[in-house]
């Protein structure tokens, strides 16, 4: 047996091991990739101040909603629309979060019909402190929105700290949002 092993070395077996080593490195990447969602695109806005914008509010089209609203507190910005089926799915979760007074939730009503948006909030409850109406999706582009729903976590300085793409589930709230919110709230301004 030992003579055999020695012979392996003599012949220079190491170079023949290269393919299998490379293959297993590849496989481990594929394994990790299996549990990532490739449609989730990380946002370059995380770590940056919220983009400047100014939009009419849903409850009062005379009043304006701008990036200044985010200063001085930790808040969520939830991008939603009445035509968005998935938004309905996360709505109870957001309502629950609002009821618990865990955090202030703002809404960005994205490419929606104002009447339908009102109706939606009446029907399903309103977890939002205020809503900005982005009828043409122009501000959505500023925020890098590419699918509805999306949810941003903004810290006291008005800096975006996290972006959640897709439906916020109860599990996401417990595991990701609440711990982060707790941490952000303890940060001094």
């Amino acid at each position, binding site marked *: 047996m030992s003579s055999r092993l020695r012979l392996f070395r003599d012949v220079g077996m190491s170079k023949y091991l290269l*393919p299998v080593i490379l293959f297993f490195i590849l496989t481990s990447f*594929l394994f990790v990739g299996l549990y990532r969602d490739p449609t989730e695109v990380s946002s370059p806005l995380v770590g940056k101040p919220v983009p400047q914008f100014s939009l009419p509010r849903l409850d009062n089209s005379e009043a304006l909603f701008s990036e200044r609203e985010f200063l001085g507190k930790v808040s969520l910005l939830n991008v939603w629309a009445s035509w968005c089926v998935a938004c309905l799915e996360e709505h109870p979760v957001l309502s629950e979060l609002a009821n618990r007074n865990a955090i202030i939730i703002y809404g960005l009503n994205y490419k929606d019909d104002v009447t339908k948006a009102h109706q939606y909030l009446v029907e399903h409850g309103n977890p939002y402190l205020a809503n900005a109406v982005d009828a043409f999706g122009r501000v959505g582009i500023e925020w890098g929105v590419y699918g509805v729903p999306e949810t941003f976590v903004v810290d006291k300085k008005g800096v975006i700290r996290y972006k959640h793409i897709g439906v916020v589930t109860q599990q996401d709230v417990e595991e990701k949002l609440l711990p982060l919110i707790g941490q952000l709230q303890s940060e001094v301004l």
Partner: protein
Amino acid sequence: MIPEIGHFALIIALCLAFVQTLVPLLGAQTHTVQWMAVAKPAARGQLLFIAISYACLTYSFIIDDFSVLYVANNSNTALPLHYKVSAVWGAHEGSLLLWVLMLGIWTVAVTVFSASLPRDMVARVLGVMGFVSIGFLLFTLLTSNPFERIFPSPVEGRDLNPLLQDPGLVIHPPMLYMGYVGFSVAFAFAIAALLGGKLDSIWARWSRPWVISAWVSLTIGITLGSWWAYHELGWGGWWFWDPVENASFMPWLVGTALVHSLAVTDKRSSLKNWTVLLAILAFSLSLLGTFLVRSGVLVSVHAFATDPARGLYILIFLAVVVGGSLILYAIRAPYIKSSGQFEIFSRETALLINNVLLLVATLTILVGTLYPLFVSALNLPSLSVGKPYFDLVFSALTLPLVLVVGIGPFMRWKSTPINQVSKRLFKIAAIGLAIGLVLPVMVAGRSTILVTLGAALGAWSIASAVYYLSKNIRLTEHGTHILHRIRKIPHAIWGMSVAHLGVGVFVLGVTFVSAFEQVRELPMQVGQEAELSGYLFRFDGVRDVQGPNYFSKQASVRVFKNGEPVALLLPEKRTYLVQQNPMTEAGIDSGFLRDVYVALGEQIDDWTWGMRLYYKPFVQWIWLGAMLMAVGGVLAASDRRYRLKLKRRRKAAAQDFHEQQVTAVS
């Protein structure tokens, strides 16, 4: 009842696959003749039961049995019969069944054509193929059962994905799978040789026709896919570097390298190590492709609806099969002797350079395709790698490759006298360069350095192939009749020349269409005319057309050149009744030198439609070139050499068998 029979047949096939793997492999290790003999009947039985299973699924489609979930999801009573038959492989589960069926067919083909092979070799080859079959049958049965019932069963099915309701897509997947799966034969031969420790050049000769056949299927499959995209997607593109396209292209590239290195191993019995590794890699990349398409790790326009459990299963299978074979390779390869020596200036070297370039190209595509995944696995910000990147990098690697294509045939095995070859090559290069300078100006009236380079390389490859053939025919010689001399050329030489001619034709097509194509996108009113590259398009209006399971808006566009009518194009915008998605059917007038292409867009008002007009010079040359490569492959695989060898080997095997009988008796 029928679906249950199909399901049950699949389970029996799995049992037979186990038998086909374990018994012959053990038999080969222990030299037990009876055990080795189990391989053939087991393989044939397995195919029988897979075929039964496949027939049952097809039957369920034909009779619209929507109590079968898979049928309900992928068919509809209004679907035309031929699409019902092809809908069997229209989605994940059924396409997997097709995969297994193809594997069964290849395996049985091996049993038929292996009469002259040593029996332990056959036993090992069939055993390895049985193992692959186990993997895929288990995968089908555990995660993707196409016979699953649904209760209550829907009255109507959800229809086949409209994208797949096209003649091109009917044949594209079977050809593609035939190629993917075909590489399993070469793989099995390689593993069998490694297991048996007998890796001689005879091994290469056995594998060669199999590898070439698989490569031909894959070539045709990929070509059809590209042709389909051109017709069906309405963007006038023929290759998008989508991950799924790349997944089929990588095995093709390695398969091409393998075809060439097998020639060296067969004729000169050198590079054995390398050839075995390529045989393993070609099939590994087929498996990797299966993983990429079915696991959802990458974003693609063609991916199947995915499920992480499926991805995990294939990944484990991949790790076992590929990891296992590479470990076996690492253990055995150091002892493989390559005997043939050669000089630097020889055909061996030319083929090695070809291999190096093909491998680097494959690796580049692999890294490019998986880069977004690497980045996401390392928690870095997402990025995309797409057409602009691949076009640039791949063409840079292709240029030297085409250069070698022109040189290779003139090189002799072992060593070549430089001055003799260089004189010939100089002639060919001069022809190539002249064509490269003149042709673009003739086609488009202008040229750039890159276009000249592309055209010259294409012409160089064509000129080289033609020159090589004419040398072999000895055109200038008198005496025997020319037809006689043509007939005497071995198919292998025809094959190589035609395939290399195809490379040149392909390169010319790609060069001209990418440099000189013209696009116009514009709203057109009924009666309006638009001009593009000397062609006049007149929009005559849109009418409603009723198809079997769709309704369609069909535009009528007449094309004129110099006042003469050229073509009547009827681009359509179809809406399929069940899935309600609009689909484009481009209106195309194909010609040898150019296509004119119209795609119908959205309706803007009563009289105005969005319209996209294309002028595509030489675009058909792309598929023509690819098909020539396939034809070359067919010719090469039909070379007399293999058939003669087969006869002789049969005789030898008979003798061998007789001797063994004698020793067994004594």
